[in-house]
Every structure is written in structure tokens, then in C-alpha cells.
């Protein structure tokens, strides 16, 4: 075999192996999705949405408490994380720009995006739960909010920077003060991107379990009291799935299915917005 013929064979093998790994990776995705959907749909019924949690073995148990709790926690976290994240991202893009401080903030924020979320939970435990003396929705929301900030900060920073400098200059040339330039021109220009960032941030935070484990803890019963432990979908999945009770495990699958659909839905929505935003340009 000539050297070139050998290269062609090796090329074939290498490309086949690569494609194989892609198929394997996709295979796992479909396996997990299939398991999720088939178990989840099987376990779905109206009770899930109307009934609260109950001890194992009860006929009428559902996930209302966990669903509402999740919405409360994520909603609160969004109220905390999004404004702070957008403001911080605005600072980086519009004021700090390339200063050493801005770079330091970007770098630290980037690192935090990949840092373990359970550590954030431990931190919030120390500064919120311990002084309060008990678990609370506040603690959970704060933990999620802290996780959210770097994500929103980064996307806002990136998206605002994409707005052309000439747009800003045109506004300044008309005599607008800086904050008005930012709010009226820059934000508007980056609207789609920022929205996508927010949706992706919510999706990311909505799937977190670890930081809630000892901040909002969990609860089997419906509550809207923010000063108490708050049930969440994610921790409920964990507790129910790991339990030895079959009906709880079923509920766990239903919860997992609902959670995943919600998160995948947010992801897809976010990408669609970005896609159509680009298309219009």
C-alpha cells in the first residue's frame, strides 16, 4: 500500500470513529429523553397539578406544592438576579469597557459560572439560614439569584457590545445624556439578546438542586410563606426518586418530566428569539 493509500484508509477510520462518538452521544440523549418521557407521561395525571404532596401510599397526592414552590423560588431568584446582572453587564459594556477592573470582574464572573453550585448553598446557609435559625424560601432564592448573576452579566455584556458604536454616537450627537443613550438606544438594540440571556439564565437556575438542599430545603406541603422552607420541584425529585416508595418514585418521574419540558422549552424559546432577532437584521 502506498503512503497515500494508507492515509486514505486511516482517514476513513478516523472519520468513522468520530461519527460513531457523535452517534453514541446522541444515543445517550435519546435514551435519557425516552426514559424521561415514557416514565413521565405514564405518571402524569390531573392530580399532579391539583393535589399537594402527601406521605407515601396516599391515593390523592400530587405535585402542586412543588410546582408552585419552584415557581416562587425561581421567580424570586429572577427578581434578584436579573436586575443586578443586567446592571452589572451594562457597567462592563458601557462604562468599564476595557479597564482592568472590568476585565477582573468579567474573569471572576466567568469562573463563578463554572463553580460548584453546592458551595453557594453552603455560603447562603451560613449567611441567611443560620442567622434566621431556619430554612426559608428567601435563602433558596438568594442562592439561585447568586448563581444567576454571572450568567445574566455575561450575556448582557456580550449583547450590548454587539450594538454598533455608531448608534451610540448618533444618539450622543443629538444631545442625549449617557443613561438615556443606554436605555433608549443600546438596550433596544440588544433587546433580543438580553431576553435570550435571561431565559437561558432562568433555565439554568431552574434546574438546580444542590444549592436548594440546605437553603430552602424542601417541604411536602403546600406553602407560600417565604419565611419557611419551600418545596421545590428539583429537591422533590431528588427526595422522591431516592425513596423506596413506588408511588413517590412515580411522582418523581412526573416531576422530572415537567421540569425538563419547562427547561428545554425555555432553551428553545431563547434560541428562537435570538434566531429571529438575527433574521430581521
Amino acid at each position, binding site marked *: 500500500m*502506498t*503512503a*497515500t493509500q*494508507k*492515509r*486514505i484508509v486511516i482517514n476513513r477510520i478516523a472519520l468513522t470513529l468520530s461519527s460513531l462518538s457523535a452517534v453514541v452521544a446522541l444515543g445517550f440523549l435519546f435514551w435519557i429523553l425516552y426514559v424521561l418521557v415514557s416514565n413521565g407521561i405514564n405518571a402524569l395525571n390531573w392530580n399532579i397539578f391539583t393535589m399537594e404532596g402527601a406521605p407515601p401510599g396516599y391515593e390523592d397526592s400530587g405535585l402542586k406544592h412543588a410546582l408552585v414552590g419552584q415557581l416562587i423560588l425561581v421567580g424570586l431568584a429572577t427578581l434578584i438576579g436579573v436586575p443586578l446582572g443586567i446592571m452589572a453587564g451594562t457597567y462592563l459594556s458601557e462604562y468599564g469597557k476595557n479597564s482592568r477592573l472590568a476585565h477582573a470582574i468579567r474573569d471572576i464572573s466567568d469562573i463563578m459560572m463554572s463553580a460548584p453550585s453546592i458551595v453557594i448553598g453552603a455560603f447562603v446557609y451560613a449567611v441567611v439560614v443560620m442567622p434566621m435559625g431556619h430554612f426559608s424560601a428567601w435563602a433558596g432564592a438568594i442562592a439561585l439569584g447568586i448563581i444567576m448573576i454571572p450568567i445574566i452579566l455575561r450575556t448582557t455584556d456580550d449583547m450590548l457590545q454587539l450594538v454598533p458604536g455608531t448608534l451610540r454616537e448618533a444618539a450622543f450627537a443629538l444631545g442625549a445624556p449617557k443613561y438615556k443613550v443606554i436605555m433608549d438606544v443600546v438596550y433596544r438594540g440588544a433587546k433580543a439578546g438580553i431576553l435570550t440571556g435571561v431565559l437561558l439564565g432562568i433555565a439554568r437556575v431552574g434546574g438546580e438542586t444542590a444549592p436548594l438542599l440546605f437553603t430552602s430545603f424542601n417541604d411536602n406541603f403546600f406553602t407560600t410563606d417565604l419565611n419557611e422552607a419551600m418545596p421545590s420541584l428539583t429537591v422533590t425529585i431528588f427526595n422522591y426518586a431516592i425513596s423506596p416508595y413506588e408511588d413517590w418514585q412515580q411522582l418523581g418521574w412526573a416531576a422530572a418530566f415537567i421540569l425538563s419540558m419547562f427547561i428545554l422549552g425555555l432553551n428553545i424559546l431563547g434560541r428562537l428569539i435570538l434566531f429571529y432577532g438575527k433574521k430581521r437584521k
Partner: protein
Amino acid sequence: MASIIDIQDECALHVRDFEFTYKGASAPSLKKITMPIAKHAVTALIGPSGCGKTTLLRSFNRMHDLYPGNTYAGEIEFEGRNILAPKEDLIHLRTKIGMIFQKPTAFPMSIFDNVAYGMRLQGIKNKSELEGRVEKALQDAALWKEVKDRLKHDANGLSGGQQQRLCIARAIAVEPEVLLFDEPTSALDPISTQGIEKLVIELKERVSIIIVTHNMQQAARVSDYTGFMYLGELVELGHTEELFVTPKEKLTQEYITGKFG
């Protein structure tokens, strides 16, 4: 129609009714090009942006095949066969028709390894053969003296002009029949440009050269034949001095006198 002279000497390549359509395009970018390419001569392709000269150039070594979806019709004859045929061995073709790009493209490896790359691909392993051919290629590219003491150094340490000459050495090391130059000096300073142009003229003794250039003066300095293209068509092909001094087509004359860029 187009004014295309008859090449009396031998042809390295012959393009016949060549049509090229980019993927998803509604109309062809190259419309029925017929063009002989003289052997051991420099043929320049000039024309305004978007006229298709680079598209045509990249068809000669079937570079477009890297991006599936393009379609072509017609024939490009080389060494007695149509290289547009589906069964054409592209790897072999590209060792016979080499290419130099718009920006210097030194590989992330040493100077020696860069020049030896094509030869190693062909399976040449013998150390002394490699060393001999690398030295010869670098000498032919007028780079040997400058790099002979640092062959093991990273090629990225060279200046832009040196890197482009390195790319030329790399291309001629595999002893091709034809060399395609795609605006090779557009990223270089005037002195390096001069060096490359000198090289092109020297190299035509051994390879047939097609050079795409935006710079008419460069075409006038360097080439034996010049082809003027416009909107995907070959408008005129002639001896360089004749085309620039007494162009046969009105369009050619307007381009040369700067009526449009």
C-alpha cells in the same frame, strides 16, 4: 463576444465551456468560460471584485469540493483528462496543481516541517532525501539563506513576506506542474511584494503559473498572458503587453483605464 487568442505554445490546462454555480445560488458565478492556459508561462487573471477570477482559480485544484453543494458543468483538461470528472483523484491532482493563498498560511510547525509537509504526505521518509529537497525548495523560493540556521524554529516567527515565500517553498517542494496564486501579495508590504513577483517570474521556467491579482500593474509586470474577467465571463485573453496597450474589447479598455474598479 470574447476575444481569446490562440495559444501557439503548449497548454498546461484547457478550460472548455466551464460553468460554476455556488450552492444555493440562483445563477452561475462562472458562465461558459473557455480558456487555454499556456505552459511555462505566467497567466494573470484580472477584473473587478466579484468577477469570478478567484472562483475560477479555485476550480483548477477543485478546492470548491471542500464545500459540498456547488455544481459545475463543462470541462477542464489537464494531462489529457478532464479533472472535473467525479472519479478524479483529488489528492493526486492537488500534488500536481498547487496553491498559494491571499494571506501567508504557515502551518503550526517548524520551518523544516512546513516545507517537508507535502512530501511527507506522499510517504517520503528518507531523511537525506527530505533534507535535500527542503533545501532546494527553500533556495528556489529565495528563502534558504535567511532560514538555514533555524530550520527547527517555529514558522510563525518569520515575517509576512518570509512566510509567504515559505508557503511557496512548501508548494514547489512537491514538484507540481501548475501553481495557482490567489492574490499572493495583498497582505504584504511593497518590498516583500517585489520579492514574490521576482520569484513568480523565476518559477515559470519549471511550473505553469496562474495568478489572480487585484493590482493591474502587478499583472503587467509579472505575466505573459492576461485574462480580463467581468461578471463571471472571460471578456478577453491576450498577450499581456497587447492587452494593456491595445485591448480588443471596450470593456477591457474601460477597466484598464480605471472607469470602474
